[in-house]
């Protein structure tokens, strides 16, 4: 780890001021991603701005019946919050599918949204990587790319976003509240992360000097018909090869509303409004689910080692929608896939 200055932010305005004063400074919340990357010399901040004591730990109901969640709420507290368990079980399930109990106790909501890719070349400072060192090239495109993206890739980068929580947030239509020196703004979670295009060093649309203050869930929680299915190389404590968040509203066996997001396949949680529209008004049958999966995966392309992900994702989408439709969501503890 490089040597660095340490400041403890007194309030959000102080954090923004400290960020503006030193462009090479970084915020630190739970530390579970940043300290890891600093130990690898991938991140070398001149200063850490400790925001872990800021009062951004509340979970409160909004006027319209949604939920506002402070950026410093630990992942475990969010997953186990009674209102989240009752009204947004898809979010609780996705969070509990990620990392370990210890890490979830430390990890913050804001840090989870900002966590960086697990592409092994990004971690290995001896190899070229456009995300770590812009302009050096991408080692994964012609290298080992079994874990890499099949959707929304560019010639510069084929990395995936590793967050489980973000996949559920994308399906639920969450908003991200941001503060910066020019004031506050709000963006949809689906517009928060970006595709790599020719600037893969930028994971998100968060501006320099901005800080996430909260996320907001709209009232619709899909608490009856939902499932989060995560497929990985071992049953727990591993990143997704493919994950699916599915949420339905049913009238009898007819789908009145559908949400679908994929993780592990792109530089951001992957949602397709077309796939969701194709489900509305249809019967909840495997055929219709398969058609939605095809639409969601439209344009998927394989690299040398990750072709299996396309069919895996297709089958996982169908299975997750079936779990959601039958109100038998995937358990994150009992691992048999129903």
């Amino acid at each position, binding site marked *: *780890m*490089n*040597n*660095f*200055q*340490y400041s403890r932010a007194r309030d959000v305005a102080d954090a923004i001021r400290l960020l503006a004063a030193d462009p*090479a400074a970084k915020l*630190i919340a*739970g*530390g*579970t991603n940043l*300290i*890891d990357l*600093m*130990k690898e010399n991938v991140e070398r901040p*001149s200063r*850490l701005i*400790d925001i*872990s004591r800021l009062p951004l730990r509340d979970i409160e109901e909004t006027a319209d019946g949604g939920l506002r969640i402070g950026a410093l709420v630990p992942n*475990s507290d969010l997953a*186990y919050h009674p209102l989240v368990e009752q009204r947004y079980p898809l979010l609780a399930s996705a969070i509990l599918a990620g*990392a*370990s*109990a*210890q*890490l979830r*106790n*430390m990890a913050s909501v804001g840090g989870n949204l900002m966590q960086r890719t697990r592409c092994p070349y990004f971690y290995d400072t001896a190899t070229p990587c456009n995300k770590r060192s812009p302009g050096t090239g991408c080692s994964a495109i012609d290298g080992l790319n079994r874990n890499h993206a099949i959707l929304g890739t560019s010639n510069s980068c084929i990395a995936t976003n590793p967050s489980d929580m973000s996949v559920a947030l994308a399906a639920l239509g969450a908003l991200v509240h941001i503060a910066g020196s020019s004031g506050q703004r709000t963006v949809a979670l689906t517009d928060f992360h970006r595709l790599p295009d020719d600037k893969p060093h930028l994971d998100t649309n968060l501006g320099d000097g901005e800080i996430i203050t909260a996320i907001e869930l709209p009232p619709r929680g899909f608490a009856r018909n939902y499932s989060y299915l995560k497929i990985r190389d071992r*049953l*727990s*404590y591993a990143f997704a090869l493919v994950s699916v968040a599915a949420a339905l509203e049913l009238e009898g066996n007819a789908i009145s509303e559908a949400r679908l997001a994929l993780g592990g396949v792109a530089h951001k949680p992957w949602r397709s409004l077309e796939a969701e529209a194709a489900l509305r008004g249809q019967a909840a049958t495997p055929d219709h689910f398969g058609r939605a999966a095809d639409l969601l995966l439209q344009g998927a392309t394989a690299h040398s080692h990750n072709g299996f992900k396309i069919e895996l994702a297709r089958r996982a989408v169908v299975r997750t929608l079936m779990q959601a439709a039958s109100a038998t969501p995937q358990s*994150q*503890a*009992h*691992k048999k896939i129903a």
Partner: protein
Amino acid sequence: MADLTDQIPERIPINLVVNGARRTLEVAPWTTLLDALRDRLELTGTKKGCDHGQCGACTVLIDGRRVNSCLTLAVMKDGAEITTIEGLARDGMLHPLQQAFIDHDAFQCGYCTPGQICSAAGLLAEGRARDADEIRELMSGNLCRCGAYPNIVAAIEQAMSRS
């Protein structure tokens, strides 16, 4: 970029309550809690396995919650209460989890054991595990290279049934 090296603080004073005792020490900002415990406070029960959050050997309790001390900066925990494996026994009596690990022979080399036991103490406090599958899932952040998993689960079940 300006060379800030000579302005960078090597020593920041912090207070910790470690296993019930108040400890004051000075740390560089880049000192992890794990290194502070082992190298500065000489509490070497907490182990360094991977140093990257991937094994759980460094698990301690901060304000009663289990965390990976290798991914925690000591300076960020100024004022916190830390419990390590050395702090679990009370009045000469082993913690029920320590006794259960012995009863069930829940280790081989023992390197992962302090982290397993601290993690299990956090698990019991959380109250979220009701059966063996849930114990396995909620203990997945603690790897055991000797593969003592069945006995670890049995030990935790014993402590759970008696708590």
